[in-house]
């Protein structure tokens, strides 16, 4: 029997032990695609985090009425709802972010992290814990995606959140391109595994 879940174990698992990007390797498509700058990474992380928290909470509330056989379609409906709301909010108040994230905001509706957590956690646990599970995993996702964005921005463009740290002409532009995203994500996963050590999920 597993140790009893608390709010803190949920946060701890989400951020470290089962970090969605660095340990479970979920939701890698947006992670690799939009992290050209730290700002994009942070924005994408927050968008995914909010959708994750709300979806998990509502799926957990509805777990008794969701038919086992057709649960996937229900997950999509729920996460697509929240994604649409977020997308409209972004379009209205942060048009520049919405533009730089492009199609990946809408693709949050089918992000692997959301399905993974919905199916593995929210469906078996009460809404309160599911909420904090979502917060933990959302923070874990945001953390890694922002770090990746920051590293790529520093190396590839020479700035961090728009502030120049490396003079122009000394940047490693491959870091801002797709191959660099793969290299650096692999490095981050390696570091995360090292930090995680022997702690199992």
């Amino acid at each position: 029997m597993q140790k009893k879940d608390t709010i803190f174990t949920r946060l701890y698992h989400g951020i470290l032990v089962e970090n969605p990007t660095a340990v479970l390797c979920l939701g890698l498509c947006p992670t690799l695609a939009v992290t050209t700058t730290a700002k994009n990474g942070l924005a994408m992380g927050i968008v995914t985090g909010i959708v994750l928290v709300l979806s998990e909470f509502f799926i957990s509330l509805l777990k008794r009425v969701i038919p086992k056989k057709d649960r996937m379609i229900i997950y999509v409906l729920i996460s697509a709802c929240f994604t649409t709301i977020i997308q409209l909010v972004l379009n209205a108040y942060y048009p520049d972010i919405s533009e730089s994230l492009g199609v990946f905001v809408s693709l949050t509706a089918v992000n692997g992290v959301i399905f993974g957590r919905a199916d593995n956690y929210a469906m078996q646990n009460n809404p309160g814990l599911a909420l904090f599970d979502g917060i933990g995993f959302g923070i874990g996702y945001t953390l890694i995606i922002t770090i990746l964005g920051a590293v790529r921005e520093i190396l590839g463009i020479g700035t961090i959140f728009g502030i120049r740290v490396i003079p122009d002409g000394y940047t490693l532009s491959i870091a801002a391109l797709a191959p660099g995203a793969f290299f650096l994500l692999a490095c981050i996963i390696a570091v995360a595994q090292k930090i995680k050590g022997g702690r199992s999920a």
Partner: protein
Amino acid sequence: MDEQKILRISFFPHIRDKASTSRIMLDVIIALLPATAFGVYNFGWRALLLILICVAACVLSELLWDLGMKKRVTLRDLSAVVTGLILALNLPPTLDWWIAVIGSVFAIVVVKMLFGGLGQNFMNPAVAAKCFLLISFAGRMNAFVFQNVISATPMEVLKAGGNVDLLQMFLGNTSGAIGETSALALLIGAVYLFIRRIIDFRIPLFYILAFAVYISIYSIFTRGGIDGSFLAAHLLSGGLLMGAFYMATDYVTSPVSPAGRIIYGAVLGVLTCTFRLFGSATGSVAYAIIIGNLLAPLIEKITRQRSFGKGAHLR
């Protein structure tokens, strides 16, 4: 005295040969000496400095990696020296030293050591590093200075539709990367490699053959016939010979079966030519070789020799 009589029992293979990794690598270094010497003669002391920096950076990063990871130090196989040398010969002579260092560290640490060291790398480290630098520092990697002026390489002249001096290209008195300009020096080294039986003729032969056939077909359609000087100019430029004899023949990243080597060489020729005629002028050889490296395991799979009597019914 009975213990003395115990015979030494060893696992196969029982045929012994003096060949060793370090000897083969030494032969490659010797074969590259004419091209290196000519590069230094052609481009001056900066080229020599760049070569030394690359070799030193490669050797040092392998040493530090081995020490840091508490592994056996593998410098004695000389492969780091070869990687550094080949990388340096592929760089423009006036490249900043720190870019060369980044390339060398990338070659050794990321491409070679992270995958388990020599024999485990799935790409030729020097070639992968060249592509890495080409993508990262496109401007600086394509600025070729010759006789104190930035001048187009014969490859670029050719691509722009200009005329090139074939004799000078053969001798190497042209702009370009340090080691790739002199076809003569590269061929002298290649002859040495063939005499020492270090490289198999199949990869370079079919590489160059496929390339020549492709160029000929291209010139039939675009120039109304096979143009000998156009063909020769393409064969002598852009590091094709360097790639065919020294980079594509890397043991680790090329297929071992004879048929596989023929396919591998032909694939490289076709890729190089496609990139060169329809893509950007520089780096076509390097890009072709890393793609070929990735295809090598597949080529190996389809050309694997079947043991007699086994698997015949499957076909």
